[in-house]
């Protein structure tokens, strides 16, 4: 099923196809590097799911099926760009150079964030659906006022497009020509609700009503996602204003480890999407067009296994934070109720990490 007006450079079978506007600039090495990213991210995701099943994580939000959307977009970012994620953007975090174990701190329930957002230029996760779209537009307004050549990108899902905040973000970005890219991963499901519950028109078409370009890309085609995102970011940096990118993809797994998708969707649908797997199509393309050897693919798998092993060790080593640390950053300056709370807890003999 090819969706109308869907930018695609690689078919599900791994055939190179050509688009009127977008052409890939990537070398075989770069494409292979993205293949590696996707394999590692999938492995990370599977390991995290296992860790949750073993009681080592409170929750996990899998991204399986969305690897091309995230690696394509993540690799399109320049180091100076800034991104505002939701809670499923483990692939973007990977591309920003965030050590994988830090992405799991939130899910280990030892942190609400996990990394230094200024260092990695990747904000802390936003769980309230759609809030980050407005935060991204505000940041972009700051970039604009600084006269900087930077772009801002924000990630959210198809469900979030029903939120007031996301629609307000569209209005503001348009009104101020903010250098921001709205990247919606339409993975077809907002927990149990299909996209048709959120919208009667393709999501990318909504952009037109707000006065900026919208584009739908095959979210399982890493080449297309990369090129579409790169162009939208460049457009933003050059003062062209916002773009809405709808990455048409599929959430192969559950919403989170607490979810049971068998209650609301049929196996046939999942099976159909398996044939559009984002990793397999790049692999097929690399084998066919660039004669990449089985040995190279095997090496990537080994590397992913090593990463997973290290991830497991790192996660298991994350102990309970010092309860007194809850008082550290509630405010940026002295506050009497914080001093009092800390004193009370200390008097109870509470304290120390374990």
């Amino acid at each position: 099923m090819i969706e109308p007006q869907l930018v695609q450079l690689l078919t599900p079978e791994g055939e190179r196809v050509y688009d009127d506007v977008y052409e890939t600039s990537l070398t075989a090495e770069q494409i292979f590097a993205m293949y590696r990213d996707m394999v590692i991210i999938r492995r990370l995701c599977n390991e995290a799911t296992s860790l949750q099943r073993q009681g080592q994580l409170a929750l996990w939000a899998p991204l399986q099926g969305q690897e091309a959307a995230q690696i394509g977009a993540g690799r399109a970012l320049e180091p100076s760009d800034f991104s505002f994620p939701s809670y499923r953007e483990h692939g973007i975090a990977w591309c920003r150079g965030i050590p994988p174990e830090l992405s799991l701190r939130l899910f280990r329930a030892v942190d609400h964030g996990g990394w230094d957002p200024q260092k990695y230029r990747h904000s802390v996760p936003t769980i309230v659906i759609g809030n980050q779209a407005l935060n991204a537009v505000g940041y972009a307004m700051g970039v604009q006022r600084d006269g900087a050549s930077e772009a801002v990108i924000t990630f959210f899902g198809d469900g979030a497009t029903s939120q007031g905040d996301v629609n307000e973000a569209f209005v503001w970005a348009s009104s101020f020509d903010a250098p921001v890219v709205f990247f919606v991963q339409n993975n077809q499901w907002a927990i149990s609700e299909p996209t048709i519950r959120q919208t009667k028109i393709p999501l990318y078409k909504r952009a037109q009503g707000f006065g900026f370009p919208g584009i739908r890309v095959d979210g399982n085609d890493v080449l297309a996602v990369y090129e579409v995102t790169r162009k939208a970011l460049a457009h933003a940096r050059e003062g062209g204003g916002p773009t809405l990118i709808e990455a048409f993809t599929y959430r192969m797994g559950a919403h989170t480890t607490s979810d049971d998708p068998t209650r609301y969707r049929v196996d046939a649908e999942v099976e159909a999407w398996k044939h559009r797997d984002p990793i397999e199509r790049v692999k097929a393309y690399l084998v066919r067009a660039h004669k990449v050897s089985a040995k190279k693919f095997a090496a990537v798998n080994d590397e992913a296994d090593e990463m997973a092993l290290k991830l497991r060790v790192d996660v298991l080593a994350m102990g309970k934070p010092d309860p007194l640390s809850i008082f550290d950053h509630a405010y940026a300056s002295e506050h009497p109720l914080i001093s009092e709370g800390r004193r009370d807890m200390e008097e109870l003999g509470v304290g120390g990490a374990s």
Partner: protein
Amino acid sequence: MTMAKALNEGLRRAMEANPKVLLMGEDIGKLGGVFRVTDGLQKDFGEDRVIDAPLAESAIIGTAVGLAIRGYRPVTEIQFDGFVYPAFDQIVSQVAKLHSRSSGIYEMGMVIRIPFGGGIGAIEHHSESPEGYFAHTAGLRVVSPSTPNDAYWMIQQSITHPDPIIFCEPKCRYWEKGEVDTDNAPRGLFEASRLREGSDVTVITYGPSVRTCLRAAEAAASEGRSVEVIDARSIAPIDYAPMAASLEKTGRLVVVHEASANASVSSEIVARLSEECFYSLRAPGVRVTGYHTPYPPSKVEEEYLPNVDRILDAIDRVMGFES
């Protein structure tokens, strides 16, 4: 000068001092805000620093969050108290929590100005007192000036403060005049101030009710009762030390505000001072507040709001209490 003018001058001075200070709100540019608090500022500082916002309160706060992350110091205006609720999510979920979520890396210093309170004969949603919602939220601070001098200084102190501050402006006092000393700040932002000395009863209040309480104290004096009036100024955190010191002396407590009493700032003040000053109390603390109804049609707001008679009645009650 008037409080509105004092705020205007305070904002101007803050903008001159720090080029990262931006104002954002509905109709704050050419119009100068519906209360003219930002009058002339867009003309002098430009449209990039005094931003007429599209009409979306959640977006005003949500974009202020991003601007703060980028290193700007946004000062946002919510046009009226009753219109802050669309922004409530951004305020409690992001503004209040991002400093903590980022382990202290994001500094969320920003000021959210809200003209609040009643007594102006307005239609619905234009007379509310939502400060309690914000006082309840960890990560936020809430202050309210009651005089032009405090308004002038407190707005500047709020803008330079590293934490997000909900700045509640008593809109019924915007046009009242008072001396402004532009050289010396009266006191710290979070310090309460004793406005009238007395020995029989301690009346604690803030914002629009301060003036009402001073009038009540005056009336009580003519009946031979000596009433001490304390302006809390800061609603979160509350500066209890001068309140407790006063209560040690008077033993009687009345707390006054326009918001309704249930689970309110006055609940907190009475509970806290009862705990701290238990052995000095000669009567239970009494509250004079708005009733537990939606803010009424303004033809009957005089009966809804704490007025001199109701405050005097409360003073009578604490004076007449026999333990």
